[in-house]
């Protein structure tokens, strides 16, 4: 896929090579008269680590909900492993954005991970050694064994993220969707979660689509970026997408992309209105704005 913005679904015949684990084809969503997503198309290959980047309100959560089947698009379709997605899709694991649990909820990290195995089944689960073993392995894989018996509601944000990732991964999905998992984490916890994810992607051969409003935490880990702005998307490698010409087209007005100390900054061009204020990818404190 090239780094051009917002093209309709590719008409260039059948794609060669392996079937993408996820194909988003011309997805549009209107919510109460507002165009949230406008002809969004991209594909993710198996085992790819993809960042879904955009400011708050760019449509990241809506796009993830469409992929999950929780939101009906007004146009377009989503293919998972080459097939139209069904509501109950074991190929997709999901880590939600808002996760709040009272500290007194009687649910250990271990219980939440165990619920990932077969939570849609009826009846009480039979205790089984294989299941316990699987849960223990998964907790170990996300480095959560030390707090496996603590109530989930008492864990820190970073610890909860790791437990949620284990919950999502235990069903052995081939695509893991994470909605802003880094939003409320400090820099160090965010780095740990990203490192953990990129390790797991390679080990378990799971593709990851992770939404974030800040690209820099993901720079080292991403194979691909899907950049959302004004409801439209551009997809490709970071070099292909996070460029002045591509993003200017996406935003609909001129922006500059700066590299400072290995970090990417997207800045509204000179003479522009400052309606880009909420759209920057990164603005470290004290950095002069154009």
């Amino acid at each position, binding site marked *: 896929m090239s780094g051009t913005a917002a093209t309709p679904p590719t008409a260039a015949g059948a794609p060669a090579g392996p079937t993408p684990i996820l194909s988003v084809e011309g997805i549009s969503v209107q919510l109460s008269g507002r165009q949230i997503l406008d002809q969004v198309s991209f594909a993710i290959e198996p085992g790819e680590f993809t960042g879904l980047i955009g400011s708050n309100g760019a449509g990241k959560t809506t796009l993830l909900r469409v992929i*999950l*089947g*929780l939101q009906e698009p007004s146009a377009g379709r989503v293919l998972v492993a080459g097939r139209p997605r069904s*509501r*109950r*899709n074991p190929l*997709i694991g*999901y880590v*939600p954005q*808002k*996760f709040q*649990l009272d*500290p*007194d*909820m*009687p*649910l*250990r990290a271990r*219980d*939440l991970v165990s*619920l990932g195995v*077969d*939570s*849609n*089944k*009826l*009846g*009480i*689960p039979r205790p089984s050694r294989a299941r316990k073993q699987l849960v223990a392995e998964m907790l170990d894989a996300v480095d959560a064994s030390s707090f496996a*018996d*603590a*109530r*989930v509601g008492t864990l820190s944000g970073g610890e909860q993220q790791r437990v*949620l990732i284990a*919950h999502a991964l235990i*069903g052995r999905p081939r695509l893991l969707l994470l909605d802003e998992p880094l939003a409320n984490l400090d820099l160090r916890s965010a780095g740990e979660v990203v490192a953990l994810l990129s390790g797991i992607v390679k080990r378990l051969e799971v593709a990851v689509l992770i939404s974030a409003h800040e690209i820099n935490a993901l720079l080292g880990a991403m194979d691909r970026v899907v950049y959302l702005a004004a409801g439209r998307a551009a997809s490709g490698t970071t070099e292909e997408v996070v460029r002045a010409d591509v993003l200017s087209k996406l935003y609909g007005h001129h922006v500059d992309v700066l590299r400072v100390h290995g970090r990417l900054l997207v800045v509204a061009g000179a003479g522009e209105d400052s309606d880009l204020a909420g759209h920057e990818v990164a603005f470290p404190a004290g950095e002069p704005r154009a």
Partner: protein
Amino acid sequence: MSDAVKAVFETGFFTDQPVHVALAVGTVVAVITAAVGVFTVMRGQSFAGEALGDLGATGGSAAFLLDVGPLWGFTLMSLAGAAAMELIGIERPRGRDLATGIVLGAGLGLAALFLYLDTTYHNTTGATITVLFGSLFAISSSTIVPVAALGAAALAIVLMLYRPLLLSTVNADMAAARGVPVRLVGAGYMLALALAVALAAMTIGAILSTALLIGPAATALRLTARPGRAMLVAALIGIAAVWLGVLLAYDSYYWPPAQHGWPVSFFVVTLIFLSYVASGLVARRRGRS
């Protein structure tokens, strides 16, 4: 029997039929309300539970008026209330509270009318006390079977829905992403809640049914970090409170004022409250807040 045993178990406790009925019905109700109540506390739906109990009172007072068994009055009205709350819409917690409040208000208005008619035209002066505060000793032995059947239905629903209900209680989006029909599961839970609360309202009274629904469950949440175990602990607490309450109420016939006996609901609810307070001390000692 030794004198000590006699002092605790007054003569006749083990042979009195109302005691048997009270213990049987009380045990069933304690188990059901514990299983349902753990989810009620986790889902933050105590208000809905309270409202359904009060609506049960509306049905109970209507049953007195029509001279049909109070069990059916309590159950049907509680179910109708749950259905009305579901239909009004409960997408957001605030909407859920409003729906509950509106249905509850309407129901209590009817209860006021029915209880007035009960006492003025029907000459059932005891109806108000029985409906609102219940009495395990006043339950007819013929209700044991229907109580057990309705209780088994409520318990079966909760156990069947255990996993999807637990996950949608933790996070609705995560459950939906896993293919759980969240709304349907929630409706199934409301059905179980309506049944459990109706049974509790009939036995210890509409006003006190919340105590049996929420008290043992809230106590259990402090004592264990595991959801399944919380249901077991809550059931044990509920059973203990009911049995001890029945025993104390039976003994209280010999307390002042003599030959009257204290209401059994008072003992049950007080014991539940005390266990909740005690569990707070246990949890604090363990260093958990």
